C-alpha cells in the first residue's frame, strides 16, 4: 500500500508557492481583473496553510478559519467587482496604467 502520509512541509511549500504566485501576479499584471484574481490566489494560498496546520496540530479551528476567510473573500470580491464596474463606467478601461487620474 502506498503510504498516505504527506509531510507538512509539502503543503507549506505549495501554499507559499501559491501565495508568491499571487504576489507576483499582483505586481506584474496590468488588467484589474487579473490583479484581483491574484489577490484571491494569495488568500487561497493562506487557506491551504491553515488547513495544513489544522491537520498538523489536530486543531479543528484551522479548518473553521478557512470558512471565515472564504466568506470574507466573497464579500471582498463583490465589493471589488462593484468598484471595478464603477471605474469602468467612468474611465472605459480596465488597464491600471490608464487609471492614472491621481498621480501616484
Amino acid at each position: 500500500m502506498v503510504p498516505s502520509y504527506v509531510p507538512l512541509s509539502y503543503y507549506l511549500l505549495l501554499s507559499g508557492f501559491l501565495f508568491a504566485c499571487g504576489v507576483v501576479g499582483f505586481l506584474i499584471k496590468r488588467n484589474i481583473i487579473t490583479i484581483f484574481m491574484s489577490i484571491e490566489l494569495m488568500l487561497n494560498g493562506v487557506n491551504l496553510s491553515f488547513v495544513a496546520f489544522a491537520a498538523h496540530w489536530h486543531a479543528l479551528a484551522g479548518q473553521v478559519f478557512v470558512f471565515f476567510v472564504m466568506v470574507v473573500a466573497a464579500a471582498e470580491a463583490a465589493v471589488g467587482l462593484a468598484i471595478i464596474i464603477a471605474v469602468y463606467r467612468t474611465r472605459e478601461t480596465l488597464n491600471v496604467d490608464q487609471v492614472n487620474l491621481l498621480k501616484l
Partner: protein
Amino acid sequence: MPDNYFAGYLPILIHIVLVGGLATVIISLSWLIGERKPTRAKMAPYESGMAPVGDARGRFSVQFYLVAMLFILFDVEAVFLYPWAVILRDLGHFGLWEMLVYIAIVLVGFFYVWKKGVLEWGPAAVRSQAASGLRINLRDVQSGVQVDVRFNDQRGGS
C-alpha cells in the same frame, strides 16, 4: 454479507425514491394540467434571459453581474450552516437562537436588495431603478440585451 449492511442504506434509498417521485409528479402534473400556447419566444432555447443567437461578444446588462454577485454572497454565507448543523444537537437552544439571529441579519440584507429593486426584471425595473439611482435605459431593458458594461471588448488589457 449481513442483511443489516444494506439496511443502513435504506434511508438513502427512500430519499432517492422520494426525490425521483416528486420530480416525476411535478413534471407530469404540469404536463397534464398546464395550458400550452407555444409562441416563438417560448419555443426559443432558454439562455438565462439573453438572446440565444447573435454575437457572443455583445455587452449585456450590469444587472447580470449584480445578481451573480448577490448569489455568491448569499451562497457563501450559507456555508456556516453546515458546521452548525453538525453540532446543532449539542449546542441546544443557544445554537438555534444564534443561527436565527444570523439568518435574520442575512435576511435584512436580502430585504434591502429586494427593496432596492435589484431583483426586478423587465419594464417594472426601470421605474424602481431610476428611483434608486441605478440608471438603466428603457430600450435596453426591453430588448433584453443590454449595454452597460463591456468586459469583452476592452483593449490594452494584458
